[in-house]
């Protein structure tokens, strides 16, 4: 038998090495460049982790009013489909929209699908207020006072009409919001993956407006690492991630979540 400790140490020592120079560290701009790149990567990763199929061709204003997607929890992710997309209706034309160049391909076994990957520019705003000033996109944000503490960071990334919002409260507590707008399309299908090994404990929370959030936990090694909530509302899919918050706070935030902006714009 070989000794695991020495074998493992040797194996780890064979990994790439990394050394740093003290001269880099007083440079604030260097740090900011890293942070900026990190945010871009996070946004790109979030978008590529979400594969949307938007089906064009039959969009009408009448149809839009009745749009409501079916939200299903999968192994370690989420699937949102419009009821028409989930049916066997032949697909006249389709597009896969992924933000990053890597894009994504979804197979359709019985139909020939024309695939077009569109790459959009991403715009980053340093606060929700700045986003609201500069963009004419309806977005429903929670009442942040309900989280019970001040947040230190707000970032809004916009790609086409999709939003990815990061709100950090502390090292352990953060909130993410993703919003996808599919009003220009008759059908949509979205697959998302979450960190962790599995998703469990699916439940619903109905807000004060009577709109239903599908809520579930993502687990790693049996321990909850995050709570996710998804709602489909008048042509938008909204997915929320809560890290480090208790159920009581999450339920309060969801109960009082005002989604009326989606019906105004």
């Amino acid at each position, binding site marked *: 038998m*070989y000794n*695991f400790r*020495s074998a493992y140490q040797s194996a*780890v020592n*064979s*990994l790439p090495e*990394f*050394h740093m120079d*003290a001269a880099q560290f007083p440079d604030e701009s260097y*740090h900011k460049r890293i942070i900026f790149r990190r945010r871009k990567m996070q946004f790109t990763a979030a978008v590529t982790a979400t594969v949307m199929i938007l089906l064009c061709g039959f969009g009408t204003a009448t149809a839009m009013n009745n749009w409501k997607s079916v939200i299903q929890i999968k192994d370690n992710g989420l699937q949102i489909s419009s009821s028409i997309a989930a049916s066997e209706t032949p697909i006249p034309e389709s597009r896969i929209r992924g933000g990053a160049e890597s894009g994504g391909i979804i197979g359709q076994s019985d139909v020939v699908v024309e695939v077009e990957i569109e790459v959009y520019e991403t715009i980053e705003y340093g606060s929700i207020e700045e986003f609201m000033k500069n963009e004419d996109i309806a977005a429903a944000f929670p009442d942040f006072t309900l989280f019970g503490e001040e947040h230190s960071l707000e970032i809004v990334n916009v790609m086409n009409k999709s939003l990815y919002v990061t709100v950090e409260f502390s090292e352990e507590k953060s909130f993410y919001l993703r919003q996808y707008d599919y009003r220009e399309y008759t059908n949509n299908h979205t697959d998302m993956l979450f960190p962790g090994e599995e998703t469990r404990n699916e439940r619903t929370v109905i807000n004060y407006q009577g709109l239903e959030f599908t809520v579930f936990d993502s687990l790693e090694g049996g321990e909850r690492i995050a709570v996710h909530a998804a709602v489909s509302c008048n042509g938008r899919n909204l997915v929320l991630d809560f890290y480090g918050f208790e159920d009581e706070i999450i339920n309060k935030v969801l109960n009082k979540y005002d989604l009326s902006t989606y019906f105004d714009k």
Partner: protein
Amino acid sequence: MIRSIHDNSHEFQDILDCYSDRLFKIAYLRLQNRQDAEDVVQEVFYQYYRRKAEFICEEHEKAWLIKVTLNACRKIWRSSWNKHRSSGNDNIDIDGVEQEPVLQKGSSFRNPEDRVLTAESNQALLTAVKLLPAKYRDVIHLFYYEDLSIREIGEVTGRKESTVTSQLTRGRDLLKKRLKEEYDFV
């Protein structure tokens, strides 16, 4: 005696020389992505430098650095949908890196065949560890690579000693199965 860091750049460079690669390896094994791991280490030392933290001893300093590294890894893991992103990058890359002998049974490893075998053994071992759930992987690495005690692992991970012991046992059991009982885990 409380030791203040960064009194001079030589001391800071010494700290970097001592810990940057060790922290990088913790982050690399956790995130399985070189760029992410480098970012984590840079961020950790940026915080270290900025906060001018004070430590009562070297062990305290080491524990602080490891703890902040693990927290930074967790942050990247949860915020970047890392699982999805790393799914196409399953092999820890040891290509192009000079392989050190792993098996301790007396051969000199000087011929190319031995080196290939060594590289394969390293890869198999690292892959087995990589396939562990992250919480077991952390504990295995800290125990077997960083030589931290159960108590120290509990401190840097924020877990109870009983939890660490249990995770270490489960991690070992999984490794034994995956490595087909070839290793002694003493």
